[in-house]
């Protein structure tokens, strides 16, 4: 169970990010409606997913880079505090978004928009505890091989393996996100209509801030070695 936990977290956060109308499916849907083309909806999801993936990948890069300079424990504490402070800020400013006025957007714009929204809302930060746990698991698996003393190159393999797992995590997250975005956009487009926005659009901004705090709590527990 402990082995799959970070993977489930990446998957779950991906689904959560995908469901949030502010992360892209609604933008894609509006572009399709405006241009009277269903194809536009599905095509628009691609740059949105790519922009989001980049934001998450940056978090993975931060983890890998961080581990080169400081220990896993230190990085866990750092992540926990960063998440806590950012979550606290969002808790009181959950309604704030980066200013973006344009609706006449091309694929490049959508990519940039999605990256900006994901980054500014701390999407990458939110999954960092899960990414750290993956790195930790990879490290432990390597340690169990007991090869470190015999093979001087083991440290590099070690990092490589951890990197591979993290990239896979980014992929899992993005796939979950794009799948949920697609299904949600399809349901609203084909089944429910835009009127559903009026009744079912719950306050994702506030939930997002709470999710950041939950991630912070998980990060603290991990840093303390409780989980």
């Amino acid at each position, binding site marked *: 169970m402990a082995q799959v936990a970070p993977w489930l977290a990446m998957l779950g956060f991906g689904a959560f990010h995908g469901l949030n109308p502010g992360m892209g499916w609604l933008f894609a849907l509006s572009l399709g409606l405006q241009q009277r083309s269903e194809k536009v909806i599905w095509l628009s999801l691609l740059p949105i997913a790519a922009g989001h993936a980049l934001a998450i990948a940056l978090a993975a890069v931060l983890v890998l880079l961080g581990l080169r300079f400081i220990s896993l424990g230190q990085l866990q504490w750092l992540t926990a505090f960063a998440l806590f402070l950012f979550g606290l800020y969002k808790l009181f400013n959950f309604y704030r978004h980066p200013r973006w006025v344009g609706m006449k957007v091309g694929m490049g714009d959508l990519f940039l928009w999605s990256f900006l929204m994901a980054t500014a809302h701390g999407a990458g930060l939110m999954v960092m505890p899960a990414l750290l746990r993956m790195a930790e698991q990879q490290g432990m698996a390597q340690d169990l091989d007991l090869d470190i003393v015999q093979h001087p190159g083991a440290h590099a393999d070690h990092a490589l393996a951890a990197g591979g797992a993290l990239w896979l995590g980014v992929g899992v997250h993005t796939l979950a996100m794009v799948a949920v975005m697609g299904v949600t956009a399809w349901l609203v487009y084909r089944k429910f209509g835009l009127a559903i926005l009026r009744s079912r659009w719950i*306050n994702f901004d506030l939930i997002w801030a709470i999710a950041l705090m939950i991630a912070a709590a998980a990060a603290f527990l991990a840093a303390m070695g409780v989980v």
Partner: protein
Amino acid sequence: MALWKPDPSFYPSAKMAMQAPPERHAYVAALNHGRNDKPDAICVVDLDVVSPTYGQLVYTLELPNVGDELHHFSWNACSSALCPQAPHPHLERRYLIVPGMRSSRLYIIDTRPDPRAPKITKVIEPEDVMARSGYSRPHTIHCGPDAIYISALGSANGDDGPGGIFLMDHFSFEVIGPWEIHRGDQQLAYDFWWHLAEDVLISSEWAKPGQFEDGLVPADLLGNQYGHRIHFWDLRRRKLLQSVDIGAQHQMLLELRPAHDPRKNYGFAGVVVSTEDLSASIWMWHQQDGDWRMRKVIEIPAVEADPDQLPPLLKDFGAVPPLVTDIDLSLDDRFLYVSCWGLGELHQYDVSDPLVPKLTGKVQIGGIINKTPHPQSAGPLLGGPQMVEISRDGKRVYFTNSLYSTWDDQFYPERMGGWMVKVDVHQDGGMALDPDFFIDFGETRVHQVRLEGGDSSTDSFCYPS
């Protein structure tokens, strides 16, 4: 501040907004500048048909300062909060942003908890407005997807600089600063609105403060010195894209009413008066080969009149100009209402084909010559149809009679008072005055009307109808 579900008055499309429940009250700007020493006020009018006080003034919120001269106030948030690029659907349509056009003061008025007893929650003093916005004489408010946009007619430090648009944070109500990054040669300002899905903002021209604050300057009008251009801006990059001059004789290009359906890239602009023949006109903007074009689609001629019956300003002309001072487009983009303030007529045009408007209805009340009374009025009425507001369902139209203090006195020199009336719209065109709805505000004049939950000149929509 935070709602769990979107504000129920936000609608994704204009079509959905038309299914909104009828408004139960209206907020009306009441003006005392130049009439007495009382401050201006925001009045609440009961529009709930089952209420015992229906059609009556039920509350008056007096402002703490004298001489603000309220004009076009509006809501802090509207349906544009659902726009997909930076949605904040859990904002409340709750605060009225009320600019004092003469004082440059801004009031934030809270309509909760009791919408019929609104109260002031914040006042931004003129020095602060001017220092932070770079402008003075704030005029039109629009709730944008990312902020509150406010047009202003004068520059911060006097009368000569350009008028323009500034932004206000829609959470904290702090003035952010000027909106334009590249304004080109735009100098005059008045109204503005946008095509959100096209990233286009449109602005119009009235005049510099010196040309209107003490009254219409006849020499400037005859010299074609009032505004006659319309500006098209890149809403995203905040720069001027194109200006169209519709001809210097077309003086005062004022109200802008873009189609509400984001798939339609056209709209209507009203021109007050032509110095060639005193006619008024409505123009349609549309795009052709990537350029914005203006085309005159309605012309309303002046009516000959006995000079003895005319105010001093018009005696030499021997005619009454229609003076189109406000226009309003129904949410289905089907009917355009046109105020002929000089004639004392409200026109209704079917603009289903925007290039070929058809006159489908006319209501007569007030007017420089006719002074047509209302069935409930004590006698002849001064002023004419001016600020028009259409209910979201398009079935009711409300209007008031005052234009602007000093101008009221020039065109209606017999000490015009304030009144508000209602028109019932027939489903397929045509309209009639509601013979029972007449609110007499006494010597206080009334201007902008805002309806509970939004109306046809407040909300903009990001999703097609």
